[in-house]
């Protein structure tokens, strides 16, 4: 499939804007339309197009939400409320995943006893699993929340959660489970943080226009940011956005080096990200496009790397742990960063060398960090514009 997309990409990029030639003089209307289009194009010209790309669950939509929070009006109450059902769905799905996962591990795993849910919780588990497989979830009442909490605290479920990397448990699981009482409140309105944590698998494309006007700056750039789905089937839609892109913001979840893809559980997520980044870099459309690589989910990474060695992933198999604690985290991060850097220079042909490339360490949930990161991205892109205009 990829090859087809690549093939079609080339055609898409080389296609020139068709210009009416002889018809123009004869048809005044056509000329008028042409003029308007030209006007529109001119008006659009100062808008910079940014694409958020990356594999599934790499944090694209979280960044999209952050932009909305940081540079737009944010979420009003109605919007916040609309997230309640999403968050509740996350809770029900998580508990079902963990319950069914525990059952499966209890049957198949060598150390199966660990995963047997205690007798008194079995009934609760069955009930919640049944609810989790429904299309419409019931409202999260206090009683249900209590049941979920009891089950969550079951030793077998906790044991299963620690094996979450094989189960497709969303990253928000722990956060929501710890806040169950608040979530089940009758008057619950999700907070900004809840919304950022909420997991929604994006399908299709969404866009947002914003201008990171700082306190000091007068005329900020205007950006149009596109968010897309990251699963394999979604990627075929990306090519519709590839023309005229100022910068690609590529998200790579560095904590996912021991996880498998949602859409193909035989493929390591980091390996997929590697191939995907390589593919995006080689797009002929992106010859002059800047690349902002966000090594995302650093918060999970710094915890995980101390427990799960980096070299479980094939790409990092030459990694040698150095020390422990904070130093080790830094060491591991630098290693990953270097790998991505190498990949970038490998996949960037000699004719693309003038594009900008920056790597940022991010946690998309962290508002302060994201604000800082965006400021840097903005600065880089402004500088780039000045260079292109010959002013620097």
């Amino acid at each position: 499939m990829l090859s087809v997309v690549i093939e079609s990409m080339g055609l898409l990029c080389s296609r020139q804007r068709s210009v009416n030639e002889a018809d123009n003089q004869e048809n005044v209307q056509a000329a008028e339309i042409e003029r308007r289009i030209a006007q529109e194009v001119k008006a659009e010209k100062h808008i910079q197009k940014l694409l958020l790309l990356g594999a599934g669950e790499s944090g694209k939509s979280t960044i999209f939400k952050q932009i909305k929070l940081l540079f737009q009006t944010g979420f009003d109450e109605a919007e916040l409320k609309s997230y309640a059902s999403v968050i509740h769905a996350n809770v029900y799905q998580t508990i079902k995943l963990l319950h069914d996962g525990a059952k499966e591990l209890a049957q198949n795993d060598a150390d199966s006893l660990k995963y047997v849910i205690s007798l008194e919780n079995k009934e609760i588990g069955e009930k919640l699993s049944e609810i989790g497989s429904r299309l419409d979830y019931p409202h999260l009442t206090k009683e249900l929340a209590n049941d979920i909490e009891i089950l969550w605290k079951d030793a077998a479920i906790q044991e299963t959660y620690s094996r979450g990397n094989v189960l497709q448990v969303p990253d928000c699981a722990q956060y929501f489970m710890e806040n169950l009482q608040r979530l089940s409140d009758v008057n619950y309105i999700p907070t900004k943080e809840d919304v950022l944590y909420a997991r929604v698998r994006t399908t299709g494309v969404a866009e947002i226009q914003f201008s990171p006007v700082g306190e000091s700056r007068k005329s900020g750039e205007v950006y149009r940011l596109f968010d897309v789905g990251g699963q394999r089937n979604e990627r075929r839609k990306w090519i519709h956005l590839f023309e005229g892109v100022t910068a690609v913001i590529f998200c790579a979840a560095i904590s996912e080096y021991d996880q498998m893809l949602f859409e193909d559980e035989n493929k390591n997520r980091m390996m997929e990200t590697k191939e995907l980044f390589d593919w995006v870099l080689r797009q002929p459309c992106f010859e002059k496009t800047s690349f902002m690589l966000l090594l995302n989910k650093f918060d999970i990474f710094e915890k995980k790397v101390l427990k799960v060695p980096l070299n479980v992933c094939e790409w990092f198999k030459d990694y040698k742990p150095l020390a422990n604690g904070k130093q080790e985290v830094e060491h591991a991060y630098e290693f990953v960063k270097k790998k991505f850097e190498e990949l970038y220079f490998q996949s960037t042909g000699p004719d693309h060398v003038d594009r900008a490339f920056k790597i940022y360490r991010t946690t998309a949930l962290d508002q302060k960090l994201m604000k800082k990161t965006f400021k840097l991205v903005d600065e880089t892109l402004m500088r780039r514009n000045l260079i292109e205009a010959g002013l620097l």
Partner: protein
Amino acid sequence: MASCAFAGGCPSDYVAIAFSAASLIVLFARATYPFLVHKVASTKSSGFGLVIIQLVGSFNLLISLVMSINFLKIKHRHQWQECYIWAVWFEGPLGFGLLMSCRIVQAFQLYYAFVKRQLPPLRSRIFLPMILLPWIAGAALIHVRKPMNRWCHMRSQWVIPVVCLHGLYVASLVGVTRALRHIEFRFHEFDDLSQGITVSSISIGLWVATYILNELHEDIPWLQVLSRFLLLVTASILVLAFFSLSVSQPLLSQMSLRKREHLELKTMSSALGIRDNGIILRTAMLDINRPLDELLQHTRFRQSFMAFADSCLAGESLHFYDEVYELSKIPINDPVRRVYMARYIIEKYIVAGSEMEVNISHRTRQEILGTLDLAHPNLFSGSIIELIRLIKMNLAKDYWSSMFYVKFKEESLKESDGNECVTGLEFSPRLSAIRGSDNPFHHDNDFH
């Protein structure tokens, strides 16, 4: 006549060659014509691969006969004209064996889908080489033992196993076909198959007889000339008959040129004759506070929502929903039509890398692909639940504030002559930049 019987180049030989050349031309014309007329793009399907292989097999079989049984007067045999290349490799594994194996693979796929109601356990690109193996092994053995004389003929102890191998494949094709005889096929597959088998058994019978005569009675000139004439002519007929009698699905079998009504039909559901008896409510009666999955059963609403989803480049989920909804209209006691529709949906939406692959989890996909009953009413329900959730979380919110909903509402108001006002609409934050065709997947064809 006696001289040309051994050296080649009798008048009858040229007639036979002309006949086979003509049949090859007809064959290729029939194979390419549908592509020129319908401009089909379904080249990725496995059916297409099998057709190409069949063409190659047919060509190989005919050319191997011409080259190996001295039809042409060749004074000095070059290395590439060697008996073992043509009479053994091209006639066996690359010709007759390949042709028969293709047919067996097709019949086997039908058997699995309709009798066992499962997806075949082996992909045709694995299964085909597997059943070709005996041919390759046989050819290699003959090549090593070199039992042929200077006329490319073998002695009877070799002819018998060779003929047996040919017969075995014909017999197994007949066997698999017999297992299918109770199924009432929707698109005349069984008729095709049985006609194909009748024609080919007759010509194979004739062909084997002449083959044996040609191989064993080297001393009778007229018999040599006659038998090789018959050999090539029957092979040409066999090849043509085999190809024309297609065994594949309706939409994939544009290869077959028979005028069938469903060629003009656009969707699988209309090809299967599923009538639209969806809930045709007055649109005004639609209560938009109902759950989305209930609303989607309303045909007009579904279409409006689908157009919206297409504009957000997320249409495949809705198209999938639509087709599964069509499938649900086929009664349970009509498993054949259900299997057709299910296979079609799987190939279009479920298989990894398919044309309009939907965003579902690995497990759900594997469950469908490993199903034990393709006609099962709940085959797609897991994936539908996943996708409705996806649609609800992603698209539903934006739909209510989109132009598509406004239009839908307007139309329904017009219909009911109501004077209700649509107020408080914001426009959707979805794609303003992408304009053009509603269905993003239709672009893909333009690129090729």
